[in-house]
């Protein structure tokens, strides 16, 4: 997939940072304001999808390779499970909020509510990486008409 025109590229260069930052903001204030890991992760994935659409697949994959996205995806899921297992170990329950029980932070502050921000970050990582991966896979596919009249999916040619 090739990139778009120079106008789109210039706008993308300015806008992508703000989309990314907004995603991070949604994730880390998920326990204080509307939002959370899922929404923030989708917004971060949006910034990478914008990059892929504007500059082409190869450029975006150089920024975040599919292997790195794999690892981010898996590590997000693992982090979420590790938080849950720590709750099992120290609080006695799977998903027990052990940090809040021991060190309750000030209410309405960024460092409060124990494991919830950590879980938010884990979910955000996971959602962002998996949506980006799905997009990269789908972006190289096209549905075209075969000779016998049926539709089939092909990989897009690079030199288009």
């Amino acid at each position, binding site marked *: 997939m090739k990139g778009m025109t120079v106008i789109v590229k210039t706008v993308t260069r300015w806008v992508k940072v703000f989309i990314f930052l907004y995603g991070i903001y*949604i994730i880390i204030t*998920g*326990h*204080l*304001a*509307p*939002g*959370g*890991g*899922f*929404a923030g992760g*989708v*917004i971060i*994935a*949006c910034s990478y*999808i914008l990059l892929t*659409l504007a500059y082409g697949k190869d450029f975006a994959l150089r920024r975040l390779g*599919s292997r790195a996205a794999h690892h981010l*995806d898996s590590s*997000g*899921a693992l982090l*979420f*499970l590790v938080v*849950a297992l720590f709750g099992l170990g120290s609080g006695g329950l*799977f*998903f027990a*909020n052990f940090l*809040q029980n021991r060190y*309750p*932070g000030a*209410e*309405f502050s960024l460092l*409060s*509510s*124990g*494991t*919830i921000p950590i*879980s*938010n970050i884990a*979910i955000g990582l*996971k*959602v962002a990486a*998996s*949506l980006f*991966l*799905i*997009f990269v*896979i*789908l*972006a*190289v*596919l*096209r*549905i*075209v*008409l075969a000779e016998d009249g049926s*539709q089939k*999916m092909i*990989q897009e040619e690079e030199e288009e």
Partner: protein
Amino acid sequence: MGIELYLLILLVFLIVGAIVAVETKNLLSSVIALGAIGFGLSIAFLFLRAPDLAIVQIAVEVVLLIFLIRATIGRDVIPAKGHIHWAGLAIVCLLTAGFFSFGYFAFRSLNEFGSPIIAAVDAAPSNKYLADGLKQTGSANIVTSVLLDYRAYDTLGEATVLFAAVLGALAVLRGRAWSKRGKDK
């Protein structure tokens, strides 16, 4: 009546959008109508005072639109065509009418809009979450405290579903793309 009026207008808009999305012949128009439905739904969530859902809905809708346009709109996709089965259409209309009349009487038996039954039961878990959520979890956003503390199992299941979806997409759609990327390295 204020919010209900806006919601009614939005619902009519959503239903019209859904009909357009199903009935239009052009695949791109169908996808765009689907996007209009999604954005209308997110405004409906805002009217229902669910900003968390509205944010998720609008973000997912944008990504979904891009996915659909990229994945389904090819150069040579033939427009959907077909003829109408009148008997099937009549049966569907009858079933829908029955469903709506049943729903009308079911909703008549419920409480007023905005005063859920669960608020009248003191022992309901949601009352406990609302009263003690901030103290027990420390999270000012009660939705997040329910999602990631009280009902974290649900979130774990949701994350598992997403993981399985990515695994399935990778397994089904690899093939040449994968071997090509392997060759580059």
